[in-house]
């Protein structure tokens, strides 16, 4: 009994983690605390040495603190928070509404288009969803949009922020699996645009078939003269295009690493906000507080997860995972891939991308490194497969933002929707969009070129 327990401490550790997470204690504490408890148990069962705890801090230092890749995260968070206050999104949405006023479902389409464009300037989700809910939802409901359609459109468009590059999610996953962030950014672009196009086609079709769901805006809306019209377009498109050029341009123009591009983008966003006089001292303080809290939240998860995965691995967790998968018949690369996608989709109902990435990826990383999909993706095990895999995961994780009871986007919306929109509207509204995300996932699984073509074309992947 004792011997069996000693061999299976890592399994027990995982089960205890699963239960303890639902205690409602901050996830970082649960991860770190379970790590400590099982480290001590491991000492008692002679599976772990007390001196191994000394390795924790060097791991935090080397893997989290002095890690040049992760420096991108505070900068992208800060950039996103500054942008939220800059009023850029507001003007862009107004302009897009003018442009799409004649089209069936135009108002909803303008939201999706704006989500897509803003996604290419910022690497985080929260800010864009709250912003869209505050400025777009009231106008859609006022025009008589079906509430479900309005809510689903906003939730799905806001969530694109973390898929379309730049994205802090890709930074985290690239760091965990040792894949170049530049290659991941390039690889995520087409799948991100694919989702955006799927949303637009869906909105267009449903609004054409049932015009009552999405009444168009009056055609006389917007500027009267041609000159005014073009000024509006130029004024509202310039700031986001400037930022996209700054961030993505500096990466692919060879000026900066993705990390540095984040810093340059943050400086650019500050500059724009200052030029537009949207940034006084009080606003800046608020932006810093929001960014600091969000950043601490992300890295506290890294902090706890470092302890957890170190102890888990020391207790032989990697081998146990392999044996368990083989024991239940998940032994071919395709079975493992499909199993992981289903697992992540299901976990997405309860957890967010960051907990899923930090807990699941380190556990499966050794297995993933050996998977051979050369017949399907044209390259052996390693970087190319991992790039494709991360993008599949990233598309899959889009659903985790929308699936109840614990979708982050839903959580943001719940706090900001007008009182006549009920949770039931939100839940019903997101169903078709989760379906579209799963279609996008299927396309990226079946056609890996969709992911891999662009990074190969820009020379970031062989």
């Amino acid at each position, binding site marked *: 009994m004792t011997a069996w327990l000693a061999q299976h401490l890592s399994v027990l550790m995982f089960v205890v983690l699963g239960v*303890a*997470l*639902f*205690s*409602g*204690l*901050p*996830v*970082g*504490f649960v991860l*770190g*605390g*379970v790590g*400590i*408890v099982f480290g001590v148990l491991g000492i008692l069962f002679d599976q772990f040495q007390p001196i191994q*705890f000394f390795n*924790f*801090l*060097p791991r*935090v*230092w080397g893997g*989290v*603190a002095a890690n*040049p890749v*992760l*420096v991108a995260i*505070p900068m992208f968070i800060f950039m*996103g*928070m500054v942008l939220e206050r800059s009023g850029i999104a507001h003007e862009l949405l107004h302009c897009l509404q003018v442009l799409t006023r004649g089209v069936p479902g135009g108002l909803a389409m303008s939201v999706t288009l704006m989500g897509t464009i803003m996604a290419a300037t910022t*690497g985080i*989700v*929260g800010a864009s969803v709250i912003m869209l809910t505050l400025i777009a939802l009231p106008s859609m409901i006022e025009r008589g949009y079906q509430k479900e359609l309005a809510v689903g459109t906003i939730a799905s468009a806001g969530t694109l922020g973390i898929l379309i590059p730049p994205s*802090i999610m890709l930074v985290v996953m690239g760091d965990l699996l040792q894949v170049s962030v530049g290659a991941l950014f390039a690889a995520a672009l087409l799948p991100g645009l694919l989702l955006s196009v799927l949303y637009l086609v869906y909105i267009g079709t449903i609004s054409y078939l049932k015009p009552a769901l999405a009444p168009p805006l009056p055609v006389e809306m917007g500027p009267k003269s041609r000159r005014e019209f073009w000024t509006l377009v130029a004024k509202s498109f310039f700031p986001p295009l400037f930022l996209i050029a700054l961030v993505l341009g*500096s990466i692919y123009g060879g*000026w900066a690493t993705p*990390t*540095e591009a984040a*810093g*340059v983008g*943050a*400086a650019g966003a*500050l500059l724009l906000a200052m030029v537009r006089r949207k940034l006084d001292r009080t606003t800046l303080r608020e932006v810093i*507080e929001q*960014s*600091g*809290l*969000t*950043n*601490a*939240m992300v*890295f*506290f998860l890294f*902090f706890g997860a470092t302890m957890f995965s170190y102890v888990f691995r020391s207790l032989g967790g990697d081998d146990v995972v392999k044996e368990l998968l083989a024991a239940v018949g998940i032994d071919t690369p395709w079975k493992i891939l499909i199993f992981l996608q289903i697992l992540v989709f299901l976990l997405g109902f309860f*957890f*967010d991308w960051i*907990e899923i990435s930090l807990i699941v990826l380190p556990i499966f990383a050794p297995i993933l490194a050996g998977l051979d999909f050369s017949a399907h993706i044209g390259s052996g095990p390693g970087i190319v497969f991992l790039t494709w895999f991360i993008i599949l995961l990233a598309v899959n994780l889009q659903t985790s933002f929308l699936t109840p*009871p*614990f979708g982050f986007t839903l*959580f*943001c919306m719940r706090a900001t929707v007008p009182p006549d929109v009920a949770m039931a509207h939100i839940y019903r509204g997101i169903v078709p969009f989760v379906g579209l995300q799963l279609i996008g996932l299927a396309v990226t699984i079946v056609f890996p070129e969709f992911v891999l073509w662009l990074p190969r074309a820009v020379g970031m992947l062989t």
Partner: protein
Amino acid sequence: METLLAVSRLFNSVNRAAASAAGWLFLVLAGVVVVDVVTRKFGYQIPQFGSTRLQELEGHLHAALFALWFGFAYAKNAHVRIDIALGRAGPRALAKLEFFGCAFLALPFTLIAAYFAVYYAWTSFRHNEASVSASGLPYLFIPKTVLAIGVVLLAFAVISIMLRAMVFLWGPEHLREQAAITTYRMGAKP
């Protein structure tokens, strides 16, 4: 009991002060990155502050930026929680969960982490550790000390919440109101 609350408030204000001072590093970090990118593009090296040093400095600023916010983020309840199982729990049940969760998971973790973080910084200081890169920064004990301070402040924040929970759960009636803690999910997330 008043003393417990006073200690709790003291720990909180220390955390708040550390976080608001460190917050300006967002601007400093962005500035350092821009300087590094631009000078490197034009092939110019600032004397004593070449690209390697600037990049190491970015890492150190980043470490200070998250570590010094750990504790304050807990005090502001910004850390992620999986709270779906607690939908109907009342304030007393939540406070008990927080207290015992801290006692068995958070406190052991933060205390052990704080011990090793201080030890790690101390070792770095004793060996006068410098960057492994010849053109890198000296005095690595400085950022490592900041990291250690962050972890110690996190332990303070945990103790602060535990003290408040104790007063709220078992203290005299008239103090309970001001000792109430909020453990529902709030704050921003990416």
